[in-house]
Every structure is written in C-alpha cells, then in structure tokens.
C-alpha cells in the first residue's frame, strides 16, 4: 500500500511535468503538438550524448537537452506552425509527420537499439519500508520545483500574464497591445524546454529508444484532454489520477495493461465531456 | 384555419439566462412577419429553436398544425421550413451549382448514390434568384456578398422550403444589393412563400412585412402593423435601452 502511494506520487509528479509543456501549447494556440513526444526523446538522447558519451557533467547534459528543446520549439513554431496559420488539422498532421521524421533521425544517429540511461543520481533509499531510487525521487522533486516555478511565472510575470491573456482571447489580447505571435513563439520555446527536461527524467525512469516518444505523448494528451484547456490545477490533478491508475494497475492487475485505462479515460472524457473535467467551456 | 407556423409558450434557458421567455406567435400561409428587437433580444435563438438547432426547455412548435418540436433539423427542413444565417455559410470550395445541388439532395443515402442530379432544376434555381449563367460554374469563393445571399436563397429554395426564416439578410450589403434582395423577397412573396424576417435595417424591411412583432429579453413586447409596433412605448424604451 505504502509502496503504491509513494510510487504513485513520484510517477505522477513526472507525468505532470511532461504534460505541462504540452498543455501550454494547447491552451495558447489550441493546437495539439503531436511532435511533443519527440522533444522528450531528443532531450533524452542529447543528455545521453553529452553526459554519457562525451562524459561531461550531468548538469551540462541537462542544460544542453533543455537548450535543444527550446531551439526545437522555436524552430517548429517558425517553420511549421506559423506558416500553416492556425489550421489545426494541418498542424496536427504535420507535427505527427515531424515526430516520425525525428524518430528516424534519432535512429540515423544513435541506431535502433534502446539505450539504458545511467541514473542521474545513483542510490536507493527506504521510505516507510518501500524501496525508492534516488533517481526517481530527484526527478519528482525537480518536477515539482519546475511546476511551481511555471505557476509563479504564469501568474506573476508580464510574459506569463500575456500568455494567459492570449490563451483566453487572442484577438482581445492583441487589442490590449500584446503581440500574440511573440507570445506564441515564447510559449513554443518554453514548451520545448520543458519537454526536453521531462524527457531526460522520463528516459532515466524507463529507457532511451527511438519509439519512446509515443507513450509520453499519449499520456500528455490524456492529461490535458481530461484536465481541460488551460488549467494548471486540472493538469496536476489528472496527472495524479493517471499516475496512480498506472501504478495500481501494474501492481494489482498486469503490467501490460498499464496504458489501457489511460486510453479508456481519453475516449470516455472526449465523447462525454469534450471540454475536459476541469476546463472552462469554450464559446464558439 | 391553421397557421403555417405556430410557436406556443416557447422557453429557452442558457444557464441562468432566459433567452426565450414564454414566446408565442404564429404566421399564416403567405404572410410575411417581421421580428424585431434590440441586440441580444433573442431573435436568432428563436430561429435556432424553430429549426431544431437548439432544443427548447418548454413549449411547442407547429408547422401546418403538425407538431415538429421533436423532429431533427433535417426532418423539419423536409417539412418545409428553412433558414438563412446572418453570415452566409456556403460550401466555399464547391461551385454555385454544387452548392445548390446539396440543397436539392434527398435525405436518403440510397437515392444520393443511385439517383442523378437535376441539372436543369439547379440552373433554374440559380437563375431564379438572380445569379447569372456565368456564376453557376464559378467557385463560391469568388462571389460577392450580395451573390452569396442570393445563393443562400437558392439553396433554401432547393430544400423545398415554403416558410423561410431570414436572419439579417441585408447585413453587409451595398445599397444596390439591398434593393436586389428586397426585390427577390417581394417576388417570392408574390409566389406565396411565407416569411419570418429579422433585420436591423428597418427601412429596408418595412415594405416587405405584413405584420411585425417585437421581442425583448426573449419575451413578446408588442405586435401589430410595422408602424404601430415601432410607435409602441415599450419597444421604443427597449431600443433606447433602460
């Protein structure tokens, strides 16, 4: 029982971090960035390359991964999202194609086989009789720090509030002197960075492989869809629902079924309540 | 005599807001009814309720004495009532002919697949609303606002409508286009079509209606001749704002 609670909390923290970047894009531009999972993958691989193949300090690896994520986010906004001018379906299709291209790119550079990432912080500790690796503990703590940081940023800075404004009403924000294009660009950059950092931790929790982007993408989709548009709290809550569901299913039913309930949750929520459990209703 | 369209005690609520408040009115066959009211009075909501695009909380809608409140939008249209929208909604990448064709289609997959389209009728409808021969094969993306309105009429007529609900048909038109559309409506009135009309352009609307009702906050506040409704104290107060 303790095991489940601890595992659930740690996994949920990680999922919340992963979903944040995806949620930002969805709430600002109303587009589903299906290449989001690929940020995680590339982040993981960049970290692997810098810290394990080049042997540089881990912190540089994480910084490099984040930088790479930010650059990818910015490029994607400039080269794909902006030229398609808000055609959501086109953005989704092209980001899905892009994700597969990035997957193939990773195969090209690193090969097909999956790679094991050394723990970022080695060691195991006991909490209430449950074995917890320092690695996932640190991942969860850093996730929380980043999430709280993001929350403060969105609430208290000018850019953050501009992001909120654009997410609620792009035209209204533009009239109030906010440049939605710039806000979008910044958001894509932040989202890329968050994804890449999340990817480093996610990879150290599972493993690095060219197809690793699908799982976190679907989890992010589920969390954001179920949590509702533009709700950091909703994202957090649903990240915990999904995280705990997975841990419980793995512990009590069968490991292969870990994703089944996530999928069912997506389907039921979308069909019955498309605005999500905690989202605001959208006027058209 | 049964009315062509009769609305009885219609109520529609959006959360706490009452958009249609116990509204009753009727239109007899061949009559043209003006529906006026200030912005946000709930005029468009009434149309959406009649068409079944929104479902009322209470009340009934009858067409030629037959209740249609439980029917789907498609079924209501086949019973002879159809509407236009404030902003025309054509199929942007289809030609004028194909747009009209969609209106003429029977609501049956079998007939859609095996039946043939009636080209002569398509052309006839396009010409009858004042579109030119050259317009027919044109993509609707190339049409002017006035021509888009005409196309809406053609598609509405194609559905076999006898009662037309016109929502702001003069919006966005040049004065030349307004008189063309007005002429078209007069023409259709002479042919015996029934109209319910919403417009902010009261001078353009006046000659086109037999009778007028005014609503505010979804409730009926006045009815009678166009002039008498406009002269009504409550209506004036509603327009001026309270």
């Amino acid at each position, binding site marked *: 029982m303790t095991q489940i609670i601890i595992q659930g909390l740690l996994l949920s923290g990680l999922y919340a971090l992963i979903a944040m970047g995806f949620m930002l894009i969805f709430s600002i531009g109303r*587009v*589903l960035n299906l290449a989001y999972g690929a940020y995680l993958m590339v982040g993981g691989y960049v970290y692997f390359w810098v810290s394990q193949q080049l042997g540089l300090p881990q912190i540089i690896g994480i910084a490099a991964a984040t930088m790479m994520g930010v650059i990818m986010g910015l490029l994607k906004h400039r080269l*794909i999202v902006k*030229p*398609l001018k808000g055609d*959501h*379906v*086109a953005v*989704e*299709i*092209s980001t*899905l*194609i*892009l994700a597969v*291209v990035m*997957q*193939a790119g990773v*195969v090209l550079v690193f090969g097909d086989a999956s790679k094991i990432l050394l723990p970022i912080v080695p060691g195991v500790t006991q909490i209430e009789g449950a074995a917890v690796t320092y690695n996932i503990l640190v991942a969860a703590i850093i996730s929380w720090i980043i999430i709280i940081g993001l929350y403060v940023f969105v609430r208290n800075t000018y850019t953050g509030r501009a992001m909120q404004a654009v997410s609620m009403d792009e035209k209204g924000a533009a009239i109030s002197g906010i440049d939605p294009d710039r806000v979008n660009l910044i958001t894509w950059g932040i989202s890329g960075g968050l994804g890449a950092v999340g990817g480093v931790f996610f990879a150290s929790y599972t493993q690095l492989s060219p197809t690793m982007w*699908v799982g976190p993408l*679907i989890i992010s*989709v589920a969390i954001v*869809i179920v949590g509702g548009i533009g709700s950091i709290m909703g994202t957090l809550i649903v990240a915990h629902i999904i995280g705990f569901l997975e841990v419980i299913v793995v512990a009590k039913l*069968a490991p*292969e*079924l870990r994703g*089944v309930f996530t*999928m*069912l949750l997506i*389907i039921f929520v*979308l*069909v019955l309540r498309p605005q999500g459990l905690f989202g605001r209703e959208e006027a058209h | 005599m049964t009315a062509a369209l009769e609305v009885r005690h219609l109520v529609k609520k959006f959360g706490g807001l009452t958009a249609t408040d116990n509204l009753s009115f009727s239109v007899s066959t061949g009559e043209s009814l003006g529906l006026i009211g200030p912005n946000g009075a709930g005029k468009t909501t009434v149309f959406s309720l009649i*068409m079944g*695009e929104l479902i009322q909380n209470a009340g009934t809608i009858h067409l030629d004495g037959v209740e249609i409140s439980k029917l*789907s*939008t*498609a079924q209501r*249209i*086949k019973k002879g009532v*159809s509407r236009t*929208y404030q902003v025309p*909604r*054509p*199929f*942007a*990448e*289809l030609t004028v002919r194909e747009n009209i*064709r*969609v*209106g003429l*289609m029977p*609501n049956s*997959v079998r007939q*859609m*697949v095996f*039946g*043939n*389209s009636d080209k002569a009728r398509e052309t006839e409808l396009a010409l009858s609303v004042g579109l030119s021969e050259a317009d027919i094969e044109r993509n609707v993306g190339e049409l002017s606002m006035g021509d888009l309105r005409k196309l809406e009429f053609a598609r509405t007529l*194609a*559905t*076999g409508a006898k009662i037309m609900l016109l929502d702001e048909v003069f919006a966005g038109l040049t004065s030349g286009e307004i008189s063309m559309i007005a002429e078209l409506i007069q023409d259709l009135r002479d042919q015996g079509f029934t109209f319910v009309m919403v417009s902010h352009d009261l001078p353009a609307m006046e000659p086109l209606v037999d009778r007028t009702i005014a609503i505010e906050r979804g409730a009926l506040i006045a009815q009678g001749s166009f002039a008498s409704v406009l002269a009504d104290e409550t209506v004036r107060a509603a327009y001026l704002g309270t």
Partner: protein
Amino acid sequence: MNLRWYHFLLWAAFAATLMLMPELVSKGTLRTMIFACYLAIFAVSWDLLSGRTGYISFGHPFLIGIGAYTTAILSKRFDVPLELSIPIAVVVTMIGGLIVLLPALRIKGSYFALVTLAYMELIYQLTQVVRPDLTGGTRGISGIETLTRGAVNGYYLAATLLIILTIFSWALMRTRIGTALWAIGMNEESVRGSGLSTTKLKCFAFLASAFVAGLGGAFYVHYLGSIAPRALFDINFLFTILVAVLIGGAGTIIGPVMGAFFLVFLLEWLRPWLPGAERYFIYGLIALVIYMYEPKGIIRIFSNLLGKLRGANK
C-alpha cells in the same frame, strides 16, 4: 455520375499498367509492388472517411487490424474456410468499428483524431493481454493460410483488389454523396441546414471506409501469412497511410493511390543509399515539405501544371 469517354480510357490504362507489371519488373520489385497495392487500398479507405469530411482518423490501423485479426483467428484457430472468414471479417470490421466509433462521430476536429488514436493504442495493448490463446499475444499469429503462392500470383491478387476497390470508391465519390461529403468538410452546419442528416452521411462514409479497410486487412493478412500487434497497431503504420494520402491529395481517391506508389518507390529507390529504417527520415521530410507546400498533394500540383500548360497553349 457524369462519366466521360476518357474516364474509361484512363481506368483501362491504369488497370493495364498494373496487370502488365509482372512482365516488366523483377520478382523483388514485385514484392514491393504488392506492398504498394495494399498500402494504396488502406490509403483509399482512409480517404473515404477522412479525405473529404475532414474527420481525420488516426486510428485506421485499428480498423484494418479488426479485419486482419478476425479472419486470421477464424481460419487459424477455428478452421473456418477463407471464403467464409474473409466476408465475416469485413462485416465485423464494419459493425464493430461502427459501434465503437459512432459516439466519436459527434465530436469534431482534433478530438475525433485523438479518440481514434486512443482506440488504436487501446486495441494494441488489449490484443496482447486479452485471450492470448486466440490472438497469440505479443508475438501474434503465424502460419496463417495464404491465398496465393509466389510473388506473381500474390501480385495479381493485390492488384485486382486494388483496381476494383479504387474504381468502386472513385465512382462512389462521383455521385451526389461525394459532393455531400465535401460539403461536410467545408461547413457541417450548412449541410444540416440543407435538410440532410450529417450523422447518416458520416456513418455511410465510415461504413464504406471500414468495408475497404476490412477487406484490405483480411487479404493482406492472408498474403503475409502472419500478423503481430506491433506491426499493425503502430504509429509508423498510421504514418505511412496518412503520408500516402496527403502526398497524393486527400479526397480524390486517385491521389492516395498515386501517393502510395510514390512512397513505396521512393523507399525502394532509397534502399541502396540508406538500407535501414533511416529511409523514413528522407521519406518523412519529403512528405512534410510536399504537405507544407501543397496540402492538396501532388495531384493538385499536376493539375495546376496541366492548367498552366493549357493556359500557355491558348
């Protein structure tokens, strides 16, 4: 339906080219051609549902998978003859898919795409766990009875199926229902406002699509002789179908067929330089560039060129 003499001519040329192919190319290339034919069938199936209506399906492998698994399980585990198991598979795909996806047809745009994607992942995970004695679990089923022997016969079968299904779908889309489906993609409310039940139309498009997907999936599995969940219910497989349609030109039926052949030949052509999965890198990039440049696909690029040539001749 408005058929012209040159339609017959072009279709005859299309069929003849496909049928003559075994005389022209090597056995190895023929195997690639077989894959191209099945990919084209799947692309046509996708196009029937999504190409015109704009209801993007990310779950087509799910439909193809139902057809393939149904006939594979029936023939392998219950010794049902193929003449029976294939039609059953098609019916199961149509009915099963409809029951599952019907609620999803209410929701629009991105959300429809996501629900279909979720279905694909769901069935991927379920086939591995639920009744592995039937589905073969993660490893799938092998030693499934095949319909033909050898590349040449396999090719004739695939090509015939492709020709029939393409002409069927093309003809269907030239009727009024094709126009109505385009109209849904442009403005669904107005279609409803024209007195048509869009639910009925979408169901029809879905059933037509599921019919082609189920048939294609069933024949494909009886060509391959084996089936595994990861080969079918996979984003890469979805990607290949999607890219074939988009490169070719969505909504046109012929475009997706062209796109499928274009893709397969691109892969084949890249093989000497990039023998591994890296080919997908180039292939995806080309797809992305074409899609960004002309979302209506190569068929539109061709017709624009043709239009310019005609314009120049005048």
